[in-house]
C-alpha cells in the first residue's frame, strides 16, 4: 500500500502552512486585502463576471477557482484517485450550496476567508469564526443522530469530467475576453472597474498558485469545515492542524509584509455588525457540514470526479447570483436590505434538510 505523506498530520499541516503563505502572497500581488483566497467570494465574482448578477464591484472570472478544480483533477488523475461518482441526493446538495453562499455573503467570506481575515487582524472575523463553529456543531448533532444524504454510486467517466471541463471552458473565456482598460465589458464577460472585483493578481500567477493549492489540497484532503467538525465530533486534531497552520502562516506573512492591521472599524471588505457576522456563518457552517465539506473541499472533490460536490459548487454560484440580485449580500456598509430574512430562511432550509435526512432506525 503506497503511503500518502500529504494525508498525514504533518502533511496536512504543511499544506495548510503553504496555503497560508500563498494566500497572503496573492494579496500582495493584487488580490483584495484579507482575500488572497476566498472560495465564496471568488465564486461570487465568477457569477458577476458571467453577468448572473450585476453588482458592479464584484465581477471577475477568478482563475483561482478553475485552478483549484484542475489542480485537484491532475493530482487525482496522477495518483489514480479519479473516481467518477455521484447520486447522493444531488438536488439537496445543490440547495445546500445556494444556502451556504447566501450565509457566507452575509458575513462576507467563506471559512478560508474567516482565517485570512483573522490573520490580517480583522476582529469582526472572530464573530464569523464563532458562527462557523456553531453551524458546524449543529451539523455534528445531525450526524450523531443518523443524518445521511445516502450513498454515492459509480458514474460514467464522462460525468466526472463535467466540472473540470466547465472550468477549462471558463478559463478559455477568460483568455479570449481579456479585460480592457476602463471598460466594464469585454465580449461576453463583465469586469469590475473598482472594488474587490477589480483587485486581482496577474492571471498566470493566480492560475499557477491555485493549481498548486488544488494539487496539494487533493493529496492532503485539506478541509476547513472538516477541521472543526472532526474536533467537535471525534476530538481529532488531524485536519485542524492544517487550519491552524494556515492561520499561523498567513499571520506571519502579514506581519512580515506589513499587512497586519488589527481592529474592527474600516477592515477591508468587512462590516461590523457582530450578530450578522455570526449568524451568516452559522448558516454557512451548517450547510457546509451537512454537505460534507467546505467550499474548497467541494471543488477538490469535484476535481476527483465527485459530481455531487460539483453540483454544490454550482449551487454556490447560483446562491451568489440570488444574494446580489435580491439584496441579501452584505457590503462594508452592513448587511443587505434582505440579509436578515436570508439568514432566517437559510437556517430554516438547512434545518429542514437536516431533519429530513435522519436515518430511521
Amino acid at each position, binding site marked *: 500500500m503506497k503511503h500518502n505523506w500529504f*494525508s498525514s498530520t504533518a502533511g496536512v499541516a504543511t499544506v495548510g502552512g503553504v496555503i497560508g503563505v500563498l494566500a497572503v502572497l496573492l494579496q500582495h500581488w493584487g488580490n483584495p486585502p484579507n482575500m488572497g483566497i476566498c472560495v465564496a467570494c471568488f465564486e461570487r465574482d465568477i457569477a458577476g463576471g458571467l453577468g448572473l448578477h450585476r453588482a458592479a464591484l464584484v465581477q471577475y472570472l477568478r482563475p483561482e477557482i478553475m485552478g483549484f478544480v484542475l489542480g485537484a483533477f491532475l493530482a487525482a488523475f496522477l495518483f489514480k484517485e479519479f473516481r467518477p461518482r455521484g447520486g*447522493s441526493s444531488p438536488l439537496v446538495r445543490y440547495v445546500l450550496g445556494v444556502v451556504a453562499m447566501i450565509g457566507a455573503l452575509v458575513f462576507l467570506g467563506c471559512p478560508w476567508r474567516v482565517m485570512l481575515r483573522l490573520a490580517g487582524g480583522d476582529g469582526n472575523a472572530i464573530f464569523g469564526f464563532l458562527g462557523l463553529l456553531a453551524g458546524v456543531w449543529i451539523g455534528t448533532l445531525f450526524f450523531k443522530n443518523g443524518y445521511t444524504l445516502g450513498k*454515492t454510486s459509480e458514474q460514467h467517466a464522462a460525468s466526472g469530467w463535467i466540472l473540470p471541463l466547465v472550468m477549462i471552458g471558463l478559463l478559455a473565456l477568460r483568455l479570449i475576453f481579456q479585460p480592457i482598460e476602463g471598460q466594464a465589458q469585454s465580449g461576453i464577460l463583465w469586469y469590475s472597474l473598482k472594488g474587490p472585483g477589480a483587485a486581482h493578481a496577474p492571471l498566470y500567477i493566480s492560475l499557477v498558485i491555485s493549481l498548486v493549492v488544488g494539487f496539494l489540497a487533493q493529496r492532503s484532503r485539506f478541509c476547513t469545515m472538516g477541521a472543526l467538525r472532526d474536533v467537535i465530533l*471525534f476530538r481529532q486534531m488531524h485536519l485542524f492542524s492544517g487550519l491552524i497552520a494556515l492561520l499561523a502562516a498567513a499571520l506571519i506573512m502579514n506581519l512580515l509584509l506589513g499587512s497586519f492591521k488589527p481592529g474592527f472599524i474600516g477592515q477591508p471588505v468587512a462590516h461590523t455588525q457582530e450578530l450578522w457576522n455570526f449568524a451568516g456563518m452559522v448558516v454557512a457552517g451548517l450547510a457546509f457540514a451537512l454537505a460534507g465539506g467546505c467550499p474548497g473541499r467541494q471543488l477538490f472533490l469535484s476535481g476527483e470526479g465527485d459530481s455531487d460536490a460539483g453540483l454544490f459548487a454550482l449551487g454556490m454560484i447560483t446562491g451568489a447570483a440570488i444574494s446580489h440580485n435580491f439584496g441579501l449580500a452584505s457590503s462594508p456598509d452592513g448587511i443587505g436590505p434582505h440579509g436578515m430574512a436570508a439568514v432566517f430562511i437559510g437556517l430554516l432550509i438547512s434545518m429542514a434538510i437536516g431533519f429530513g435526512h435522519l436515518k430511521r432506525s
Partner: protein
Amino acid sequence: MPHEVDARGLSCPQPVLMTLQAIQSAGNDDICIRVDNSTSFENVSRAATGKGWLIANVEQNDGEYRVMIHKGFA
C-alpha cells in the same frame, strides 16, 4: 465472525462514525470495514488506531478497501 462495517459509497464523517460505533459494540471481536475511496480508508484507519486498535490486514481491489482491525492490548 468479525463485525462488518459497510461504508462504501459514504463520505466523511460517516465511515468514521460507523467505525467508532462498531468499536464500541464489538468487544474483543475483530471488525472488517469496507470503504471505496482512499480518503475514507485513511480516515477509518486513523480513527481505529487512535482508539488503540491495530490494522491487521488491508485488501485493496478495484478501488475498494477491506480493512480488518483488531483490538490492541496495552
